[in-house]
């Protein structure tokens, strides 16, 4: 029990967090790279073509993991926002702001690959269905968090606190937005097929396996990106401390 408690406390202290996660960066990146290559090769070349959609369904191997990550990362940002706002934990602020850029990129990727999947499937690049619309609003939520942080450039701690507040407000709003957008599209029957409707019914293991591998790969990449950025964030905000000076001199 002591080891776990000790580890938890160490992760809360910026210099220990910096040191410990430094060891994880290379393994995470290599894992992410290997799994991505394996997943994409498996999905693009070895998975059989779909009965209805032919080869276009292979976009799913990029689109669906990106969508899962965009939602998961926002959830992480929200939770870190709560921790940062209530307990003023510096490491929580670092993790929160470090997750935002990669989360926004995944959201944009979801939207763009969704458009590229929509054209062959529905005949149109864009459709205001529940999932695409709420994904677009999610992008605005990410931009809001990053925007308010960068607006208060001169005071990083205040900026992080305000960004945490914005993240919490966004997190509370997320279910309301999802519900209202779904309700709105159920009334105005647009496209009846959702872009992500296919994956819940996948029973073919050779289609499911690459999807799960890509989902895992994106998680590892997220961790790599987030930890790397969080370390840089801590270097910046803790500039005056001696451990930062030592780190910079050593590198």
């Amino acid at each position, binding site marked *: 029990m002591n080891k776990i408690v000790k580890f938890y406390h160490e992760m809360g202290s910026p210099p220990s967090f910096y040191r410990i996660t430094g060891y994880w960066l290379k393994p995470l990146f290599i894992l992410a790279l290997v799994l991505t290559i394996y997943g*994409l090769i498996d999905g*693009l*070349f070895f998975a059989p073509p779909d009965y209805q959609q*032919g*080869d*276009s369904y*292979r*976009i799913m191997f*990029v*689109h669906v993991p*990106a969508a899962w990550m965009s939602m998961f990362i926002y959830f992480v940002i929200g939770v870190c926002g709560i921790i940062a706002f209530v307990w003023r934990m510096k490491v929580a602020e670092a993790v929160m702001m470090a997750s935002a*850029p*990669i989360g926004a*990129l*995944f959201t*944009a*990727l979801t939207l*763009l*690959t969704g458009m*590229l*999947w929509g*054209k*062959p499937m529905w005949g149109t690049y864009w459709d205001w269905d529940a999932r695409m619309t709420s994904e677009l609003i999610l992008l605005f939520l990410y931009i809001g968090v990053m925007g308010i942080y960068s607006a208060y450039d001169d005071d990083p701690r205040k900026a992080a606190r305000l960004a945490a507040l914005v993240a919490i407000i966004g997190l509370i709003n997320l279910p309301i937005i999802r519900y209202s957008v779904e309700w709105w599209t159920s009334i105005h029957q647009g496209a009846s097929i959702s872009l992500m409707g296919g994956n819940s019914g996948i029973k073919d293991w050779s289609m499911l396996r690459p999807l799960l591998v890509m989902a895992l790969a994106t998680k590892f*990449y997220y961790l790599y*990106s987030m930890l*790397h*950025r969080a*370390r*840089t964030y801590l*270097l*910046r905000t803790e*500039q005056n401390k001696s451990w*930062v*000076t030592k780190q*910079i001199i050593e*590198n």
Partner: protein
Amino acid sequence: MLTLLDMGKYNFFVWSSMALFGLMLTVDLVSIHRHRRQIARQIKARQRRQQS
């Protein structure tokens, strides 16, 4: 080998999606390292100013 790469009439869509994925990861990687180098440079400059 080339037949494997051929996605039928969906060539453009599938390969653009993969290209976007690769582009996004590259952009993220480059931005991480560039940001880190910038912060390191700023801190070094501050240290030099403080020492002198």
